[in-house]
């Protein structure tokens, strides 16, 4: 029995490569269509819906945006404010809470963790109605803070951080910091946080993407045009029943996705590795 088994079976391998290439095309095709179509005019799109050759109407499609009551750059900025704010809060506070669960023993700690696991399963729709009425009462609808502050509460992220911390934070380090006279909060910020960087990067990416893409809650809270986020604007483009400007819709879609692409490609190796890190090890 030879140990040189890495060569494997060429037929099987060829089949695998074939399937993977098909899947890759399937994964990429809609993106290509989207980007190319944002350069074509609405009439061109109505004639031939898909084309791999870009056309010259990018600026015309852009002008449609200028005619709309909402400003896409404003929407972009709003999305950015909400996403960055929410991500920062989620990452910081979930790490802090995980730290509380890992670095200290206290009564009720395990109960608290079980409690977190349970509430992780409460879906957004249950809290949505009450949340909306609550925000309405305290006049916080049409306020981006209403979308950012709740991010402090992120049970899924706490779970993820705790798993990672259990595996990679040596408690001796905290002890020696104490001996050196470091206050607890300081220890957390100076010592624990840097170790958690990969997990923070991973959760940061997930949180950024899901906050950026969130349509449901922002659409029920934000009615003022100057506060609307990008996904809301894109959905409004489609609802334009007077004359559906397909070229502008595709452009809107591309603009919404563009920042995500930039984040993704700069950090793709973190994402792939990071998801693995969160890996539920037992």
């Amino acid at each position, binding site marked *: 029995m030879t140990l040189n088994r890495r060569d494997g079976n060429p037929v099987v391998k060829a089949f695998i490569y074939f399937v993977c290439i098909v899947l890759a095309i399937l994964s990429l095709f809609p993106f290509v269509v989207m980007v190319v179509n944002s350069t074509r005019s609405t009439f061109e799109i109505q004639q031939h819906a898909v084309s791999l050759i870009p056309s010259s109407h990018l600026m015309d499609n852009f002008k449609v945006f200028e005619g709309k009551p909402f400003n896409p750059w404003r929407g972009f900025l709003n999305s950015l404010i909400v996403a960055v704010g929410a991500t920062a809060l989620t990452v910081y506070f979930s790490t802090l809470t995980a730290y509380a669960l890992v670095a200290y023993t206290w009564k009720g700690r395990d109960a*608290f963790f079980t409690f977190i696991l349970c509430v992780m399963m409460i879906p957004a729709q*249950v809290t949505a109605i009450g949340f909306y009425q609550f925000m309405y009462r305290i006049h916080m609808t049409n306020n981006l803070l209403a979308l950012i502050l709740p991010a402090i509460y992120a049970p899924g992220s706490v779970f993820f951080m705790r798993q990672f911390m259990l595996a990679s934070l040596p408690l001796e380090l905290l002890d020696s910091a104490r001996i050196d006279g470091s206050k607890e909060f300081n220890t957390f910020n100076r010592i624990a946080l840097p170790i958690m960087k990969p997990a923070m990067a991973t959760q940061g990416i997930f949180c950024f993407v899901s906050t950026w893409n969130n349509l449901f809650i922002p659409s029920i809270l934000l009615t003022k045009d100057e506060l609307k986020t990008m996904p809301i604007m894109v959905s409004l483009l489609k609802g334009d029943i007077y004359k559906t400007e397909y070229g502008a819709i595709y452009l809107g879609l591309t603009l919404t996705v563009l920042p995500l692409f930039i984040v993704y490609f700069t950090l793709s190796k973190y994402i792939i590795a990071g*998801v693995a890190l969160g890996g539920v090890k037992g």
Partner: protein
Amino acid sequence: MNSTLVKKHGFSYAKYGYLFSIPFFIAFLVFNLYPTIYTIVLGFTDSKGLGNITFHILKDDPWKNFRAVLNAPTFKTAIGNTFTLWIMNFIPQITLALILTAWFTSRRNQIRGQGFFKVVFYMPNIITAASVAILFNALFGYPKGPVNDLLVNTGLRDSAFYFMNSPKATRWIVAFIQFWMWYGYTMIILISGVLGINPEIFEAAEIDGATDTQIFFQITLPNLRTILTYTLITSLIGGLSMYDIPKMLNNGNPNNATLTANMFIYNQAFQGSYMYARAAAASMIMFVIIAFFSAIVFFLMRDRKA
């Protein structure tokens, strides 16, 4: 693992555990518990009307909203659809993810360019679900649309097919979009799980002469149980809250074939007559259903805690 420090020089550190958990807990109380209780209460009132925050508790007929919701055929359709669509998406998704995981972690057939494929397969996950749905709505347009053009030009069909008018087709498209967006993510999670399995087990199996298939079914899969359960729960919860995709694809049509529970709730509360009370009642009913299924899965998961 070293036990966590409890006391040093008589000074208890336990209080920091409480202290550091406070922001999370407060945020929970304010942004989660209070709205949840508010929703529960609303279910027993007559709250409705845009921007109306006054309401009266229904003293003489407290279950009125719940009855109205449970009797509404649309709600029953919505719940049925929510589960159906989830199953239609999840089974192909987990199957493909497992197959790809087996291929990419195979010790015998090393696939080159795995990094590239992983990046590409994960890409659909980062795009806004709403954008994808709008895009697919355009792709499946009738009578002219890319898919129809392709079908007619290659001779697979004589004439264009009105996808958005066929309940079956629209359902499959919704399921497909969900599948397309998540198969890469699921695959990466599963691969990470496999990487966490002790390689010595695999080596021992190889020495014993096990084939790739045998290894996969008898070693890899059993060791992935925890992760598979985690994937199952997160997919279930995500699937039961499905809103963006069916809403933007065809607004639940045709004939409510793709209407999900979350869409029903949204329609009750934020459109038409703005019936917050009925929406709250529907939310609570959904919560009970989700809690029930989560409890089942949670129970199964707890059994195997190592």
